[in-house]
């Protein structure tokens, strides 16, 4: 029932290309760990990221967005699909062949409390990747760590302090400095600002954008907060239950959402403005189904306002319905329909 896309959303020589990526987790039960089911965490995801570009990956808890980030870096072994870096297929690379790619691809984590080793000083944490990859020693390493500290807005005197002496926002700066230690090309941010207060969140978002401009970094920015994702990203992919349901540039996504889930997500985000009270709202019924037994057909049909009989049985691959605008929805079978409306003669 999974559908491989005929073409991937590709342009010439992207930094990252992901083709029909899948990551399934077996559920093991009992003393003999018998397989008792499968979590379809990522179930056929395709996208590209250009140099200097931010691709936002947004969705609700359990949609598989974090798993995409981890599988892309091969921190998790993909179940199926291909991962290409500058056209080179790294899917089957062993640890040794992965090493140069690990330097180019780094990660920033959500929880600035859990992701830093409490027994290492901040300077050691930031310098550790240089030790592992043997890129700098002694004074040279010290100097590079000091300049990284300055670049992310920390005083170099703090290099000898330990993580518990820093605030949440400062810890996230340490995590960012560490990710930049090996001058990577791609940084995957897994909810890097979600744990921070709004005034600190703005500081970190600005820092991430400045660093991108300065080093021509590519970001895969994974988050649940649509407003934050839209602010940081050039293009945005919306995920629902293991699949991308819509992918386009951020302005088009906001002005012309073509998937009913994107439409509902946009309308559910509260807007901090006086005029927000009177806007039209789409409120979805029910909860997100489990990725263990995802609904047949389009995964979203159980909550979709426009679902038809076809949606309940027939899944649809992500397809380019307008230039650069990819979506997986039957509503646009006979041409793009916007604003979204239930097909004539159907009961929604």
């Amino acid at each position, binding site marked *: 029932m999974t559908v491989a896309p005929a073409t991937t959303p590709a342009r010439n020589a992207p930094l990252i290309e992901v083709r029909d990526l899948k990551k399934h987790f077996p559920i093991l039960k009992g003393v003999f760990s018998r397989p008792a089911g499968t979590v379809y965490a990522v179930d056929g995801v395709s996208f590209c990221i250009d140099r200097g570009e931010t691709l936002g990956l947004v969705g609700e808890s359990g949609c598989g967005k974090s798993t995409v980030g981890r599988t892309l870096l091969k921190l998790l072994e993909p179940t199926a699909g291909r991962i290409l870096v500058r056209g080179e297929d790294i899917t089957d690379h062993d640890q040794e062949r992965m090493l140069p790619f690990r330097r180019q691809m780094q990660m920033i984590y959500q929880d600035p409390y859990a992701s830093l080793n409490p027994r290492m000083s901040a300077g050691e944490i930031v310098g550790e990747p240089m030790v592992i990859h043997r890129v700098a020693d002694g004074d040279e390493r010290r100097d590079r760590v000091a300049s990284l500290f300055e670049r992310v807005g920390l005083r170099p005197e703090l290099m000898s302090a330990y993580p518990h002496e820093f605030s949440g926002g400062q810890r996230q700066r340490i995590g960012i400095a560490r990710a930049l230690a090996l001058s990577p090309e791609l940084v995957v941010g897994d909810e890097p600002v979600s744990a921070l207060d*709004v*005034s600190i969140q703005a500081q970190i978002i600005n820092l991430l954008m400045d660093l991108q401009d300065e080093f021509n970094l590519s970001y895969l920015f994974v988050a649940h907060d649509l407003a934050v994702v839209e*602010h940081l990203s050039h293009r945005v992919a919306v995920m629902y239950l293991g699949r991308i349901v819509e992918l386009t540039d951020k302005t088009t996504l906001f002005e012309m959402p073509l998937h009913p889930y994107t439409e509902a997500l946009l309308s559910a985000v509260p807007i901090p403005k006086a005029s927000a009270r009177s806007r039209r709202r789409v409120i979805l019924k029910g909860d*997100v189904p489990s990725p263990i037994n995802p609904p047949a057909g389009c995964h979203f049909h159980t909550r979709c306002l426009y679902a038809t009989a076809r949606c309940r049985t027939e899944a649809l691959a992500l397809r380019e319905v307008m230039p650069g605008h990819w979506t997986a929805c039957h509503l646009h079978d006979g041409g793009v329909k916007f604003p979204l409306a239930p097909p004539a003669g159907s009961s929604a």
Partner: protein
Amino acid sequence: MAVDVPPAPGQNILEIDDLHTHFFTQAGVVRAVDGVSYAVRAGETLGIVGESGCGKSVTALSVLRLVASPPGRIVGGAIRFDGANLLHLGESEMEAIRGNEISMIFQEPMTSLNPLMTVGRQIGEAVALHQGLAKKEAWARAVDMLRRVSIPEPERRFHAYPHQLSGGMRQRVMIAMALSCNPNVLIADEPTTALDVTIQAQILELMRELQETLGTAIILITHDMGVVAENADRVAVMYAGRKVEEAAAKTLFENPGHPYTRGLLGSIPKLDVAAHLDARRNRLTEIKGLVPSLHNLGEGCTFAPRCEFATDQCRAAYPPLVQHRPGHTIACWHADKFLADAA
């Protein structure tokens, strides 16, 4: 308690007056709530916003006298409800108010519900205790409440344990329990922060509907300016244990007066048309520095170290809360200037 007379809309139902709640720790006294006053009127939603550690939750816990003691203690002020100062009531009198006249819902429903009891029994017990209903009637009320918060198959869910429900369902159960005794005031402390955004929209809509039918006054505590803009009638902004600004929601978002409020609003990425007119990515307004530690606050304005407009006057003395327009109070020496700028 006296006969239950529903208060007229617009009348203050709960008043917090110059409340001081301090925590006495080894590292010194933490002035978590340092002279906070606000009132909520019958049938309205008052939003309380601020970042972590600003004292918004401790204020609410103080209302129900639920601050852990030691180390916490309410050291000054008054909380007036129904003609009484709650701070002077005995424990048994407080028990008659908690969950009955004033109830509370928390951020994480999983830790607030008893994992060993079916949700129906938990609701039924509260009703039986406060309303003096017999078991059978209380059970029937519980099922009715589950239905009112739109839980499908309420008769079946009555027998479910909290872990068998999703996060959104658990928060519905919490709301059902909180409203089961028809309280005059509902304190909702980050009620949707742990929920996904589509589920958050459902829960907030449910709270609005229930408020319309039951007339409950709601104190909505949140860090999310968007949630406040879309749900509160009036808003109080807190910073470092004090209220720095209060206004009608419309006024606060259109013409904020305190530099902290203005900074907060500028620092949030907004998902609206204006943000997309320019396809480039704009930098957000930053509030420099960190939230101060509540141990050693000086004499001056607590926001002055982070405020780009701070003057010697700001560093010397904390500004009083002044009413600049009807219903719009601000604690800032230079608020007039900011209001004039915006006009």
